[in-house]
């Protein structure tokens, strides 16, 4: 059986359709993930075709972490790429973290050349998992700069962009463990 098309109507539960993402994004090392949610296999509906099943779980002693971002600076963006008959997507996460504290500097030092996974939550609570068993999210640069700014009224801090290449876009419905995994 193949996927069945259905009508796609205006569907905004409670009239909600705010933009932007939450003020926290969740991240971890790609290598620390123990198991990934599964992508749809022969889905019969459009919704099933965009839904991941199961939870992301971490290896023993590992966990996901949260990162604060300044309000209205975070954006999750889906770019379509590829030639005809070879289309795919690049998901972009952009954000700004205030301040130049050692923690955020250390994070950028560690993240810039490593493989990560991010979970982004939009304003309606819908979650997007950037990373799968094959591909990580990787650092691309600082779209809004890093540093102190020039004026005293300038915004001091770190901006960052991470991308994840994927054949399809999915919604993640699982949990995010912010506490260490244990064996057994």
């Amino acid at each position, binding site marked *: 059986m193949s996927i069945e098309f259905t009508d796609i109507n205006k569907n905004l539960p409670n009239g909600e359709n705010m933009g932007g993402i939450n003020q926290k994004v969740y991240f971890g090392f790609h290598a620390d993930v123990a198991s990934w949610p599964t992508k749809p296999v022969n889905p019969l509906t459009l919704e099933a075709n965009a839904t991941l099943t199961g939870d992301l779980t971490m290896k023993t002693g590992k966990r996901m972490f949260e990162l604060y971002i300044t309000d209205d600076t975070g954006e999750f963006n889906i770019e379509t790429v590829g030639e005809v008959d070879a289309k795919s997507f690049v998901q972009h996460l952009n954000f700004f973290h205030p301040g130049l504290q050692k923690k955020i500097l250390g994070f950028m030092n560690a993240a810039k050349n490593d493989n990560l996974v991010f979970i982004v939550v939009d304003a309606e609570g819908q979650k997007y998992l950037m990373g799968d068993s094959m591909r990580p999210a990787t650092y691309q640069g600082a779209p809004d700069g890093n540093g102190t700014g020039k004026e005293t009224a300038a915004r001091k801090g770190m901006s960052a962009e991470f991308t994840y290449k994927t054949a399809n876009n999915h919604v993640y*419905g699982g*949990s995010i463990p912010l506490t260490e995994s244990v064996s057994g």
Partner: protein
Amino acid sequence: MWTKYFKMIGIRRGRVITPRHGEIDFSRDDISIEICQQLYEEDFPYLAITEEGKKELYGAEPDLVVSESDPVFEHLPPAEENPDELKTSIPIKRKYKK
């Protein structure tokens, strides 16, 4: 207290962003049992139910204890050790001479 009916598995007791209830700090003792039950029923991977939870929340009887029952078959007496009575479909040949 929720820990009477459920126990955490796979992670230490602490914070988890749950699918429908947002962030829950499982190190707290005052989490609603209804929320835990909902999570459990929605295949939340980090909660297992206790025997008491099965009984209280689902009316399940405790696991049956297997006891020794009467033998179904009668035990036969052991065969007498008499090599002369051994029979096979192929005659046994003595391989080595004494």
